[in-house]
């Protein structure tokens, strides 16, 4: 119900200029929404007490949340059922790491996807995806330090300093750390323009994470190169190299208001 009254309360701050800019788009979407509301049995956007499913985004977001937890759930059940194969620690490391990288790239894909599709709501999933990427990076690091190295911790520092793949992997985690702790709305408000600047660290973090994968494989680089290619493609899309001007214009109209609230990233 982005055009309804309920949204203001949920979204918080909003500048008058942005409201104006997006008025036309908002009105158009509102008309569409009215039709779909008649079809669904959702309460009216004007209902005074918001309920959980007042906004269609909530159930979708819950489903996305559950989907993001699925790789972890499978990792845990496979571990408990001894289904991780011959070298379970290597599997735990690989699977947690690959999901950190995938979610990080998915986070980076939100803005280009939003521009291409014109579906502005996508940005509402970005923080969640980014935090899950960091979460899996933490799981990955914890498995390496606590389970794999277990007892041989003197190797850790040497590894991080001497092994480029470890250096870049650990750096990626370090870069994500401040992004995770400044991901709240309050921090966003407090940091203002600097928030956006800070959160540009996500690009080097994703690049380093992909390099971490590339540099640890012995010979067959096809899979890590695929992730690097996806990263490069996302960067090109972001640089407006690929998206035709018309699509850009359309998405600007469609996402006008949210642009003011959710910094481009």
């Amino acid at each position, binding site marked *: 119900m982005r055009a309804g009254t309920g949204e203001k309360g949920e979204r918080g701050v909003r500048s008058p200029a942005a409201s104006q800019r997006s008025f036309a788009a908002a009105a158009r979407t509102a008309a569409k929404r009215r039709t779909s509301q008649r079809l669904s049995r959702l309460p009216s956007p004007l209902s005074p007490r918001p309920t959980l499913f007042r906004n269609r985004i909530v159930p979708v977001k819950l489903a996305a949340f559950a989907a993001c937890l699925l790789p972890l759930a499978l990792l845990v059940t496979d*571990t408990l059922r*001894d289904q*991780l*194969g*011959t*070298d*379970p*620690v*290597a599997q*735990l490391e690989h699977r947690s790491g690959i999901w950190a990288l995938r979610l990080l790239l998915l986070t980076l894909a939100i803005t280009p996807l939003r521009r291409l599709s014109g579906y502005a709501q996508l940005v509402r999933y970005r923080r969640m995806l980014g935090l899950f990427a960091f979460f899996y990076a933490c799981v990955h690091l914890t498995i390496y330090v606590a*389970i*794999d*190295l*277990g*007892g*041989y911790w003197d*190797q850790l520092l*040497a*590894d991080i300093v*001497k*092994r*480029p*793949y*470890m250096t870049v992997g650990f750096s990626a985690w370090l870069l994500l750390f401040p992004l995770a702790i400044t991901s709240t709305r309050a921090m966003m408000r407090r940091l203002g323009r600097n928030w956006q600047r800070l959160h540009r660290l996500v690009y080097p973090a994703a690049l380093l994470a992909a390099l971490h994968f590339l*540099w*640890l494989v*012995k*010979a*067959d680089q096809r899979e890590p190169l695929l992730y690097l290619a996806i990263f490069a493609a996302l960067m090109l899309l972001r640089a407006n190299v690929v998206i035709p001007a018309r699509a850009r214009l359309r998405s600007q109209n469609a996402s006008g208001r949210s642009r003011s609230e959710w910094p481009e990233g």
Partner: protein
Amino acid sequence: MDTASTPIPGNPLSAARRDEFRVDGPMTSYKDATHYNNYFEFGTGKGDPAQASSAFHPHPWTVEVAGHAEVTGRFALEDLIKPNALEERIYRMRCVEGWSMVIPWIGVPMGEVLKRFKPTSNAKYVALTTVNRPTEMPGLGVPVLDWPYREGLRIDEAMHPLTLLAIGMYGHELPNQNGAPLRLVTPWKYGFKGCKAIARIEFVEQQPKTSWNEAGSDEYGFYSNVNPDVDHPRWSQRTERRIVGDGFSVFGNRIPTLPFNGYADAVASLYAGMDLRRNF
């Protein structure tokens, strides 16, 4: 891991267990040793060899022997092996990637076999080549290495009593994915030196070119002796994850890596006076 209940495929082999070649502690399960290994001719995943090697035909098998020796030619596998009694030896196997296993091999000492070809004084090295059968080995379509797979040993390494030409493991013939019908086992070297499905043995004067060394000469030396003091440029070789036994094995697998994989007493003298950091 249901190793106990599942019969091991392949013909059983009777071999005398050599007690001097033993490893204290548990062995790797048959399932793990045969379903988690590197054999890029069948794919680069460690489960690929077991899955993609069923079309491979290891019988009948001949080996071409060439180079600086009085006896050369093409020999049936049976004729190479038959003159010697089969031995079972339990060896540690340390992969350059940082994991290790304990595997009971069956075979004959390579030196005993090579001696019968009467290598000449020009035979300074032994060059080994894996069979090249793209129709039976799907991994050969992917140029991760310069095929066919080539390995090599200095002649004294090849003649060393620890060096085994294996035709079996776990009391049975080698399965396709582990190098059937004939492979090299050099337990003091990283696992990739153990050339599989050997099709050609050549006595040469110059140090032969080897696949991994050509793929990355700074990462994989010709000798590739297990050495905790010489790291792989990209990762440490100080410790290893030991894959042994059955059941739940998430914790406590890491152990220190030993010089020459624990076989220093037997083989260190081969490298006396050599700078092992340069000759890695």
